[in-house]
């Protein structure tokens, strides 16, 4: 199987603090791989390293055989990598429609129109707000926009950092449906999600991170039933009190 | 030691926007110093210049004066260039009892700063009356407007003197308008003058703004109006920049490139040979100022100290390219034959009588 993404011994540091300590993982092409872990485990850092936003201190990130470390982050989109970042990172002063245009910057005008309409179909709320400045959207609306901005470019590799954060349950369903649909296409997905149970059920393969290292890995469904995981990350049997 | 060079301080604006005044004065000073040393110096001793830049800033002018006096031990300071700098820095020299000679500052009150403060430039209240008197006589001007840079102390005093002297000469001033030294658009003021039907405009401006004023005036149809400038106008730059629009402009000055005497011709030739350009008034003032100082030093004799130099300056009799020169009781310039008035004719300054 041809790995879309092959990370070997990745080390990331912020100043003196080493946040990721030698992570290795594979994302096979066309598959959905999930990354879970507690707050501060280093999930976001791994995602950022892939799209070049943090520089790797050591290790390699290969994307279809092409070394990504040391490449300029602005070049990632052209390689077909799209990122839904943590904290949304929307363009505050751009309208919803303009933000989508930026997501589909490389698309010809006509194709952009089609893709945009498809996005509006997935997230009707965005269509209602299409001329509003992104900065004025509600939190959930911004999350939808970040998702749509990434999806619109038809990426080969999609990096999703907590895509369901702040979304209403019915929209969360929608998002998971989109991810499930992507499994049918040849889009590769790397998913970080706090809604770990659903993510694991969806994923082909999963990695569990703890303080900068991968501690467990395995098939998604298998991990979903692994007692080590259910107690540590899934809050026992869902009983919160 | 008897053969040691005599240290003299030169403090001028040599960088920044205002360096066009200081740099030219400095050229004149250096040319003169060179000639003096070539001719054997002062009573056998060469002079040595310690030149410092003020960048047009008062703080730097003060520091420069302190440096040449405190560190280089100069016996006399030539400069600074601008009136505001002189007001800030000259008290420092006075405090040490070192004579200072301002060559280009024209604001009132400069020589009054202290016992050791001299001014060699002819203040404008000696120049402007000459212009107005001749303009009145030659062209019978009656209705005038005044236009000046109100954020510049020299130009402000030009305007005040224009106002006073116009009244004294029976010229009615129908409008007083101002601009800022940073401006380059004068159309509003000039259109207004055109509407008031003035026959002359009295201008307090440096050459750059002055040339713009002339050009714009001709464009706006003030072709028959006579422009009479203050000291700032006295520069070949005006003709160069304004071209045909400068025709008929009048100005009085202690010096002009058009002055046809032997000393002036030699000076202009030497300046041109050294710098590849013709001198302007600042160059002439620098040249004469340096020569004047040398004359005083010569008169002071063998014992050169600040006190004797002061006395020598006070009593010096000198004849330079600007004509005969001495200081009056208040250490102000007293050119005995006063100002000359020029008019631009066919692209050159011509002396008018």
């Amino acid at each position, binding site marked *: 199987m041809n790995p879309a993404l092959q990370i070997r011994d990745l080390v990331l540091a*912020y*100043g003196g*603090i080493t946040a990721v300590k030698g992570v290795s993982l594979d994302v096979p092409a066309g598959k959905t791989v999930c990354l*879970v*872990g*507690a*707050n*501060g*485990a280093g999930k*976001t850092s791994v995602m950022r390293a892939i799209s070049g936003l943090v520089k790797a201190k050591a290790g390699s990130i290969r994307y279809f055989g092409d070394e990504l470390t040391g490449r300029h982050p602005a070049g990632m989109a052209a390689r077909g990598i799209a990122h839904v970042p*943590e*904290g*949304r990172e929307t363009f505050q002063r751009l309208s919803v429609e303009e933000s989508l245009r930026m997501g589909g910057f490389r698309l010809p005008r006509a194709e952009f129109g089609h893709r945009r309409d498809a996005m509006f179909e997935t997230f009707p*709320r965005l269509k209602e*707000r299409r001329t509003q400045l992104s900065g*004025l*959207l*509600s*939190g*959930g*609306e911004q*999350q*939808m926009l970040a998702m749509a901005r990434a999806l619109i470019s038809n990426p080969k590799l999609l990096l999703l950092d*907590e895509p369901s*954060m*702040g*979304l*209403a*349950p*019915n*929209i*969360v*369903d929608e998002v998971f449906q989109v991810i499930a649909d992507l499994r049918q296409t040849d889009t590769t997905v790397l998913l970080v999600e*706090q809604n*770990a*149970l659903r993510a694991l059920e969806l994923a082909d393969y999963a990695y569990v991170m703890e303080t900068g290292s991968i501690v467990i890995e395995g098939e998604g469904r298998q991990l979903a039933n692994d007692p080590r995981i259910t*107690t*540590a*990350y*899934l*809050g*026992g049997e*869902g*009983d*919160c*009190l | 030691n008897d053969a040691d060079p005599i240290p003299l301080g030169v403090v001028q604006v040599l960088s920044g926007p205002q360096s066009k005044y200081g740099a030219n004065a400095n050229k004149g000073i250096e040319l003169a110093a060179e000639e003096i040393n070539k001719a054997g110096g002062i009573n056998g001793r060469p002079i040595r210049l310690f030149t410092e830049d003020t960048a047009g800033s008062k703080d730097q002018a003060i520091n420069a004066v302190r440096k040449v006096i405190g560190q280089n031990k100069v016996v006399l300071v030539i400069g600074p260039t601008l009136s505001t700098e002189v007001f800030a820095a000259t008290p420092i020299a006075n405090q040490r009892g070192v004579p200072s000679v301002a060559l280009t500052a024209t604001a009132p009150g400069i020589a009054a700063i202290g016992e050791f403060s001299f001014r060699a430039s002819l203040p404008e209240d000696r120049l402007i009356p000459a212009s107005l008197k001749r303009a009145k006589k030659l062209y019978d001007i009656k209705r005038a407007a005044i236009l000046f840079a109100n954020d510049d102390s020299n130009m402000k005093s030009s305007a005040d003197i224009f106002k006073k002297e116009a009244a004294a000469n029976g010229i009615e001033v129908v409008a007083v308008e101002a601009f800022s030294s940073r401006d380059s658009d004068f159309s509003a003021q000039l259109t207004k003058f055109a509407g008031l039907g003035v026959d002359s405009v009295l201008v307090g401006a440096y050459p750059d703004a002055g040339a713009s004023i002339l050009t714009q005036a001709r464009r706006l149809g003030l072709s028959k109006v006579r422009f009479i400038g203050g000291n700032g106008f006295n520069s070949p730059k005006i003709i160069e920049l304004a071209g045909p629009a400068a025709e008929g402009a009048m100005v009085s000055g202690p010096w002009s490139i058009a002055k046809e005497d032997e000393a002036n011709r030699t000076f202009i030739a030497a300046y041109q040979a050294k710098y590849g350009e013709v001198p302007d008034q600042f160059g002439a003032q620098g040249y004469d100022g340096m020569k004047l100082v040398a004359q005083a030093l010569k008169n002071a004799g063998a014992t050169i100290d600040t006190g004797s130099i002061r006395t020598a300056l006070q009593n010096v009799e000198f004849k330079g390219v600007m004509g005969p020169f001495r200081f009056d009781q208040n250490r102000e310039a007293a050119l005995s034959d006063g100002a000359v008035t020029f008019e631009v004719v066919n692209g050159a300054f011509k002396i008018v009588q």
Partner: protein
Amino acid sequence: MLEVKNISVRFGGLMALNDASFQVGRGTVHALIGPNGAGKTTMFNVISGVQRPDAGRILVGGADITKLPLHRRASCGMARTFQNIRLFSGMNVIENVMCGMHPTLFANPVLSILGIGKGRAEERRCHGRCLEILALVGLADVAYSPVTALSYGHQRRVEIARALASDPALLLLDEPAAGMNPSETRDLARLLVTLRQGGLTLVVVEHDLHFVMKLSDKITVLNFGRVLADGAPLAVRNDPRVIDAYLGSSAASMKESA
């Protein structure tokens, strides 16, 4: 404790809140839920004074605070967190929390500046108390790290700690569990229960339904700025309009888990 009366807020052509009213009982946990863009955050903004309502009134403990300046509301015992984390990025964790204690520091600023007398004592007290609060939310070991060096989930906890620092009577939490995994969410729920037992009134906006159902005494559902449903958790969850507008298919899974 808190009464929201006929609040309306309009942004251009959009009614973000439309004649919305509800009441929050003292010492209860009240959840505010609804689809994205329903106006929940806007409601928080109105209650905390960040947004002026176009119509309606806000009463806290019977007193009308609709026109009260922002900064005076803290001293009325109100505190809130922000949905999109708004920490003071130049400061470290404990300094952020100490800022939260500001309304409870009464010493003369001159004494504080000089670090003498009352000012000094107060500063010590403030510091100690903030360490306790940080321990409470599980951040004691990062008390002196810059907040920008914290992961998203930890930053959210700092927000909560900062809001708790003023010892409020009414606490408004906007999506406190976002970015936390289920076990962390459970810890948070435990903390909130302890706080309620201490007499604190809580209003919570949250999309994590397990969390909401278990924790809240009462739920208000907003939709397009209007109150769609208002009542006990079970009743709200089974309301077909709520299922239709908000819960979607997850209503079914909710039933199973309940």
